[in-house]
């Protein structure tokens, strides 16, 4: 051991250096809210939540149709067909007006692998994975999602912003399929429902 | 009532009962003036064919009338030759005189009007059929005189 090292040890030079760094960072942290350059990367979860990126695949929800207040789902079963973990159960029946009624739409969340194939498969944009990810619980029961629970999920975790979410993230949507201009018109008038020409580029991950 | 003997006579001419369907329907139409559901049911019974078969055939051919017709049926041609010689004017005239719309019946139930596709009388256009009588070389006066003959 050299003389130099001994002196350093005796005078706690290294420790003081380290503490100085700590003090510097500490002071920076104290001043951070007032400074231009944000330097803190740690989040104080769960007080401070990380915003989910567009297309984050969290808890499931059924889209509420703003026109009727009911679920958009018609029970076509494509989500159940595509689901690799077979965790979607749909039960339909005939309603009083001979219409198709979705009696039960259930997702066994614990078996879900969050691939979001169901969302892609749905021709009506009726099922979605919300950005909500905090749903740990102590029993299995809360993870069995019924239609009512799934609709509540929509209200709580998606709501209004959900419609944008479909427009700008899940592309192509059904509305994007259209013919070319100058199509021959066979009969009757061309339907007025023009496809929304809105921008189709997505915010993507950078949003 | 449909004359069963006549129906049998028609049936005898064809190897299959279904073959007799068109002439039997014509017979019924002649009898009743139009093919009412009852008339079709009667044909179905007479030929021992399902009602649906009879109805299917009756609704396919334009020659069968499925709405009640007047006492006399005017069938007027408005194809090219007749049109050039003014058949359309005659149609308008009928509307004016008797309130006849194409496909309709006059209020007093005297005439029914049907627009025919070519009746093969282009050389003597315009022409029309009243019931089964053929009247060529029509003009505004002639058509009126002819029709006055049908009460």
């Amino acid at each position: 051991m050299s003389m130099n090292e001994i002196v350093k040890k005796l005078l706690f030079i290294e420790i003081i250096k380290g503490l100085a760094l700590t003090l510097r960072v500490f002071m920076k942290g104290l001043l951070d809210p007032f400074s231009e350059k944000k330097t803190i990367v740690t989040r104080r979860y769960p007080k401070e939540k990380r915003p989910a990126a567009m297309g984050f695949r969290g808890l499931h929800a059924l889209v509420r149709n703003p026109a009727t207040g009911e679920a958009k789902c018609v029970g076509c079963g494509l989500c159940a067909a595509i689901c690799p973990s077979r965790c979607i159960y749909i039960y339909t029946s005939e309603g009083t007006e001979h219409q198709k009624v979705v009696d039960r739409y259930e997702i066994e969340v614990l078996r879900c692998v969050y691939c979001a194939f169901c969302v892609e498969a749905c021709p009506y944009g009726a099922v979605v994975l919300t950005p909500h990810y905090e749903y740990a619980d102590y029993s299995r029961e809360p993870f069995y999602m019924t239609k009512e629970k799934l609709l509540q999920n929509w209200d709580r975790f998606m709501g209004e912003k959900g419609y944008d979410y479909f427009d700008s993230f899940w592309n192509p949507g059904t509305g994007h399929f259209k013919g070319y201009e100058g199509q021959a018109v066979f009969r009757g008038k061309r339907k007025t429902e023009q496809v929304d020409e809105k921008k189709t580029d997505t915010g993507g991950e950078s949003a | 009532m449909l004359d069963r003997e006549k129906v049998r006579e028609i049936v005898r001419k064809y190897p299959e009962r279904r073959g007799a369907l068109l002439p039997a329907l014509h017979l019924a139409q002649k009898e009743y003036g139009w093919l009412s559901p009852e008339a079709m049911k009667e044909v179905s019974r007479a030929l021992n064919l399902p009602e649906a078969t009879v109805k299917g055939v009756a609704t396919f051919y334009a020659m069968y009338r499925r709405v009640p017709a007047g006492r006399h049926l005017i069938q007027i041609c408005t194809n090219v030759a007749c049109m050039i010689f003014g058949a359309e004017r005659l149609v308008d005239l009928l509307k004016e005189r008797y309130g006849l719309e194409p496909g309709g019946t006059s209020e007093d139930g005297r005439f029914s009007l049907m627009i025919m596709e070519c009746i093969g009388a282009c050389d003597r256009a315009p022409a029309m059929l009243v019931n089964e009588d053929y009247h060529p070389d029509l003009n505004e006066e002639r058509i009126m005189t002819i029709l006055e003959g049908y009460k």
Partner: protein
Amino acid sequence: MIELTIDGKLIQAEKGSTILQIAKANNIKIPHLCWDRRLKPYGGCRLCLVEVEGQRKLLAACSTPAENGMVIKTDTPVLRKARKTVLELLLVHHPLDCPICDKAGECDLQDLAYQYGPSEGRFYAERKHDPEATSPLIERNPNRCILCGRCVRVCWEHQGVGAINLIGRGFNTKISPAFEETLDCEFCGQCVDACPVGALGTKPYKYRARAWFLESTDTICPYCSVGCTLTLDLREGKILRVRGMDGVGVNEGDLCGKGRFGFDFIYSEGRLTKPLLRKNGEFQEVDWEEALYYIAERLRDIKETHGPEKIGAIGSARTTLEDDIMLARFFREVLGSDNIDSSARLGYAWALKGMEDTLGIKSNPVSLNSPIGKEVVLVLESDITSTHPIFGLKFLEAMHEGTEVIVVDPRKTKLARRGNRWLRNRPGTITPFLYGITHLAMKEGVHLKKDITAEGLDELEDGLREYTPGKVSELTGIDEDLFREVALRFINAESRLLTLTLGAAENQKGLETIHAAANLLMLLGEGPEALQIPSDYSNTYGAWLAGLRPLSGGKDLYGMLYTPGSLKALYVMGEDPLVTMPDAGTIEENLKDLELLIVQDIRLSETGKLAHVVLPASSWAEKEGSFINSQGIRQMLPKVVSTTGDSIADWKIFRNIARVMGHDLGTVEFSQLKEEAGKIVPEEGTRKWRFIPPEWEGLARTTEEYPILMVTGNIMQHSGSLSVMSKSLSHVLSDAFVQISPEDAGRFRIGDGEFIEITSPKGTVYIKARVSDEIPEGMLFVPLHFAHARVNLLTEVSRDGKALLTPVRIGPRKGNGGSPAG
């Protein structure tokens, strides 16, 4: 044989077959929508277009006969473009409601659109917006229809019904019954299977599941003895629908309404879930242990005090072969009683006896395809298209191929309407009709052409002397010349077939009819193949072969049910004698006298209500087993769904009772029973022919007091008392009715739908009247299926197989029901 090339493959084929048929046989896929194996080529959809070398145009493969040396291409860019265009045009009208449509996932149009698919339509679509037409069982959605006409053609060409047709023309064409009314047909549902899109669907299945949620299992139909293969579609262990699979099973994909819609009897609310034991006059639910110990004890008591010959059993024509074997073994080995019989005694047993008497055979399995290729087929007072619908279809098929189908029946049945010739005889006079033909055959000396070695010919000739055409005409009510013409046609035909049914529910034919039919055929030199008598129900024949009949001098059904005091204990398995057997009054009295009545059934039957113990059995589809159909083919049934409540399979119940009684029957496992059942073979007879002289006793006598003859039988939508449990079939028909001719309705002042009173010497019942020109004057036709009508209170039973038509009198219902107008 011709040789042609399809897609570069050299193929040999039968001359006369179409390109599509050859391609199908050689696994070359050509798309098609309007083609159906069972129908004549139609060439409507233009999807099966193929390129043939040397032909300028594309040809429709379904309707172009293949020729020698043809070079055919089935998949070229040109064809793909043509097919794509066809699909595009179809999709102009076809709504894209696949997410809602029940057909999605198994839709031909969807599959083809996916295969060739225009993802962009060049046309703006005009869709139809017609309302859906509902009916009890079949849903029509005209908007989805592509007008291929398969349903129409199946209904008319194949089923011979013609309930629907293409009505209208052009864009407005739609498939509909004649006058837009609710569909009123047989409800066979063949149109639903034929529909390539979702325009036709079954109501019970509507919106219940998507095609990809279903698992399919094949099983055998529990209703009639044809033994059709049903394809059950299940979701999560529940049967949702039944389909016929093209080419699968004896039925090759054809099904009737009972098979297609009648499966839901297993989900009936009336199913028994627990054993019921009568305590102080009331039924109480008990557990199996208590019920079994009670039965064991009582049976032991009765056996000891009265002897085993006082214990009897009635088996079922619908339980599996394995169940039947177990019942027979339980009775013979444990109880030592030979008093075992089944409902076959009242019908099919007489057919077998009749054939043994004459043709010397102990079994005569029918062959479904027997009518095809015959010159003349004679159907004798039998509504085969109702009782054995798929066998009935073969008669229509034969007719299309040139067979002359002659129907002799007082009722205007489907075959009577569609057959080449229909003779309306008086009810119950088919026997003299046959005598008449036989007489004529003898007179014409036809038999001399064949070597007839059978004995009894002289007696027959003697006995038939009086049955001259004139006399027969007088007896049967058929015009003499017509009779002579038909008889000679039958006699002089190159090949011929006689067919009739003989069932417990029918009372216008009997042993003497079988004798007469066999006499005639033997005289004409025909063997047993020319006499086709199908057994009643799914396992009637099997029950007979499994030994559900007295084998060593035991009491038969007549001895057990109709002889007072003959039994002290009766075990009834899966049968409801009070509903399905004649003279219910006598049966009821005898049942009430019993010390012990055990009824083992899937629901609390009318007979069960009189029982001391009722045991819940698991039904069809809830247990493994096998049926022997009328062709003598043993077909296995898998267990498809779980059992209802505490019910267990019939054979297990017998095993358990035997165990409680201290016997080990040796059979513990199903596999052993299955093996045993596999060893059952039909008995051979001596094959020695013998003529039986005529024994007909004359027309059923109507009197001043009882002027009308009542005929009982089965109808299309129901079969025995089982089908009444089915909700779907009950939607079509749930109430008892009696068919009456318009003439009689006028004479007795009875209106359609009114309740009438039918009185025979045995009693009176009240029942709804249906005026129908299917019935001749002086006859009533009553289906026996409905327990509440108690029609069989009126009928009589004959112990020697005689046909016993019941003379009755009718009148408007009197008393508080309110007298109808008139």
